[in-house]
């Protein structure tokens, strides 16, 4: 059934196919990635807090082509049915803009967006002092403007949301920084782009509180050896500390 | 530039539509010596500076020199204090009944607002019972409240549960016509003369009908009329007359009543 609450076009439309052979085959080179980075280098990351005027807290993150905005509203009255008398809750909403990826996204939330909303909540909840805001909720809205690697997008969303929470003055044990890594055989490649992601064997996203040296969330997909995973975790922990530094700077800049 | 749609002076009009302005001409008899003109403005009118402004359609009425109101018709009932109304019990909530009287908000009828009611001696009303009551509280910001007892005497005075019979709906204007050809200011008077066996003797429909059929009537100003008579056929006949006369021209009323009475006689003869 067509969407009655939006301006509608034709009933069905598809993304056009590429002419065969018009794109050169992708070859992964651990010494020199296609954007010139090293395997253990992040994309240069830029962050700014306080970008949404009417929100209690907000942040914008840009890393290469990847662009994510986040706003935090609350603590406010919990409108959901499940209310805890002792703890507050985080309501997370992760959305890709329709034009943010290669394929046009639908307006309805898809499986991936639902999953990422959940991961966002799981990764941030341990850091937020929910015990101080019983019966209330803090709503976190993440909007991806341009995506370049879905794991990287998720990591960026967690980092950005954490910065927005700090901007909103929500009490936290520590800021949460997140970082992604991709597996190419035994090589671990930090912060893979969309093109790299299409060819990787698996990926890992780590959410980490650098000052406390505690991990809040890890999610891995694909099969690797334990040693490779450990290597990826180590790389990500280091990268998270770098991200944390950028977060601090942007918070100071906004004071 | 003239305002759109204003071609005739309003002062001469009796039938007004919303937006019509009537300048108040100072009337020597009713102007108090020192202050400005004192006017009481009733339903359908507002006072702006020196003018009366209609907000509803109808006929401009004046009484006692300084009271003005609009006599119009509508179907939806808006509660007004001391109106007699006919309601259906929709729920029982602790110390009160919830009663549908056709207004925006359901009304509350306290279990103590009955003749001789105490906490021990509660009236027993089921959901779906019909009650004839009087509005004790009617305010746009409050839930309407009902009572089935005259607070002055403590007696039911005709109010309370109605058993048997049937209910028809009619326009608010017609309901008021049964009660009295009254202005909104003398509803109090109405209450004294009205209960469901004492009828307004002036109402032509009721008087003509009563010559042929004996029946009981309880009229709610919320546009509901309860009818009871010896036989179903008689109740149906009265109900049909009330519905047929609603909105009909006064000259046709006799004809409508006679038509229904004839039909009733035929039915009686065949059975």
């Amino acid at each position: 059934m067509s969407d009655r609450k939006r301006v509608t076009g034709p009933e069905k439309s598809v993304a056009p196919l590429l002419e065969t052979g018009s794109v050169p085959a992708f070859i992964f080179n651990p010494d020199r990635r296609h954007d010139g980075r090293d395997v253990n280098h992040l994309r240069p990351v830029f962050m700014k807090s306080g970008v949404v005027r009417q929100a209690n807290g907000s942040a914008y993150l840009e890393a290469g082509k990847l662009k994510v905005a986040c706003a935090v509203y609350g603590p406010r009255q919990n409108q959901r049915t499940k209310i805890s008398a002792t703890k507050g809750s985080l309501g997370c909403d992760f959305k890709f803009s329709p034009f943010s990826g290669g394929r046009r996204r639908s307006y309805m939330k898809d499986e991936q967006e639902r999953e990422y909303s959940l991961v966002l909540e799981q990764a941030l909840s341990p850091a937020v002092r929910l015990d101080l805001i019983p019966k209330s909720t803090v709503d976190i809205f993440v909007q991806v403007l341009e995506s370049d690697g879905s794991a990287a997008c998720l990591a960026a969303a967690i980092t950005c949301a954490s910065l927005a929470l700090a901007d909103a003055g929500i009490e936290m044990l520590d800021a949460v920084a997140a970082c992604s890594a991709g597996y190419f055989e035994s090589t671990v490649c930090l912060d893979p782009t969309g093109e790299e992601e299409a060819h990787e064997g698996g990926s890992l996203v780590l959410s980490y509180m650098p000052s406390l040296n505690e991990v809040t969330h890890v999610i891995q997909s694909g099969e690797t050896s334990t040693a490779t995973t450990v290597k990826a975790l180590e790389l990500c922990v280091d990268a998270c500390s770098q991200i944390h530094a950028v977060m601090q700077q942007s918070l100071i800049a906004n004071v | 530039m003239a305002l759109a749609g204003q071609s005739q002076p309003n002062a001469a009009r009796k039938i007004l539509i919303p937006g019509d302005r009537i300048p108040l001409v100072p009337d020597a008899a009713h102007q108090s010596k020192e202050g400005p003109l004192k006017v009481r403005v009733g339903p359908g009118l507002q006072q702006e500076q020196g003018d009366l402004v209609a907000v509803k359609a109808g006929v401009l009425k004046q009484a006692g020199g300084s009271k003005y109101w609009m006599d119009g018709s509508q179907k939806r009932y808006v509660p007004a204090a001391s109106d007699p109304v006919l309601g259906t019990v929709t729920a029982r909530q602790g110390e009160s009944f919830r009663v549908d009287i056709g207004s925006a908000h359901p009304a509350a009828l306290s279990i103590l607002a009955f003749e001789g009611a105490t906490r021990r001696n509660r009236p027993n009303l089921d959901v779906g019972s019909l009650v004839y009551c009087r509005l004790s509280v009617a305010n746009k910001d409050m839930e309407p409240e009902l009572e089935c007892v005259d607070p002055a005497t403590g007696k039911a005075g005709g109010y309370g549960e109605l058993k048997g019979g049937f209910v028809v709906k009619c326009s608010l204007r017609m309901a008021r016509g049964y009660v009295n050809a009254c202005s909104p200011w003398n509803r109090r008077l109405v209450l004294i003369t009205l209960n469901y066996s004492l009828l307004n003797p002036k109402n032509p429909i009721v008087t003509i009908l009563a010559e042929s059929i004996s029946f009981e009537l309880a009229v709610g100003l919320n546009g509901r009329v309860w009818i009871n008579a010896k036989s179903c056929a008689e109740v149906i006949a009265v109900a049909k007359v009330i519905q047929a006369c609603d909105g009909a021209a006064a000259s046709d009323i006799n004809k409508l009543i006679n038509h229904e009475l004839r039909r009733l006689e035929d039915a009686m003869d065949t059975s």
Partner: protein
Amino acid sequence: MAPAAAAAAPTPAGNGTSVSAMAVDGDVAAAASQGFSLDPDTFQKIHPAEFHRRFLSQGVRADGRPLQKFRKAKISLGPVSTANGSAMVRLGDTTIICGVKAEVAEPKPAAPRSGFIVPNLDLPPLCSPNYRPGPPSELAQTVSEYMDQVIKSCDLVNPETLCIEPGHAVWVLYVDIVCLNHGGNVVDAAMIALAAALKHTRLPQATYYETESTVRVTDTFTIPLSVKRTLVPVTFGVFDAAVVIADPTAEEEAHLSTTLTYVLDAENGEAAYGVLKSGGSAVPRDMLVACWDDARKRAVDVVAALAEAEQAGNRRPDVAAV
């Protein structure tokens, strides 16, 4: 009784000095004379309409602008490389991003050569506390619809130029406009973004293969859209049915008696493609004409901002990410 002058002349916010005392009405004014004073933030929260009224009566607005001053439109083209065309527009706090994605569809039998342009404004819960997750709000739906009617009725892009193969394949341009920061006057920002993004849109070279009935495209976006005109939306707010203010902020919008939007031609302010005034207080003919005159001046500024954006950097995507 303390005169209304107890309210100190309002000082535009942002220049550092605080407003000493602002009285609300007789009672509070009396209280103020007894040494009770309200700080401007509290005053704004308690009596927002009166707060704005005080400012406007002094010919200035809460954010320091004169009544007829518009916020500068800051436009950047091509912020989203995954889109065929994109633009970001800032009007004060209001930030809106518009991305155009091209897809392929079968044309309607009645119009076998006509493509589609599908504009939709999204006001996500991110941009303001007034929106909740779920289907689009009434404002989003109605602004989308109005934009659609305007671009169709003024023939902004001839739909036949979107034809790939008559009767079989045409382009559908999904124009999605996302508000990231709601600082008032979303309509202007959204339409400027739409106009800029469509001008910036490039389509790939497309070929229809009849045997497999599919469309295949090159990996570069090279073909510009033939956009016939540049639309400039200009919105005014009317306060207390009498005071006209240009380009209202979100705080002002909540207390306006009506708003008035003109869609003018960027090249020729004499020509318009739309006017929208939905209910509220009546606007007399001379006010409608006077606002149109002011709107023309604004159109010139917006055109300059667009030109600036076009020069500033054509960060045009050249690789189709499929």
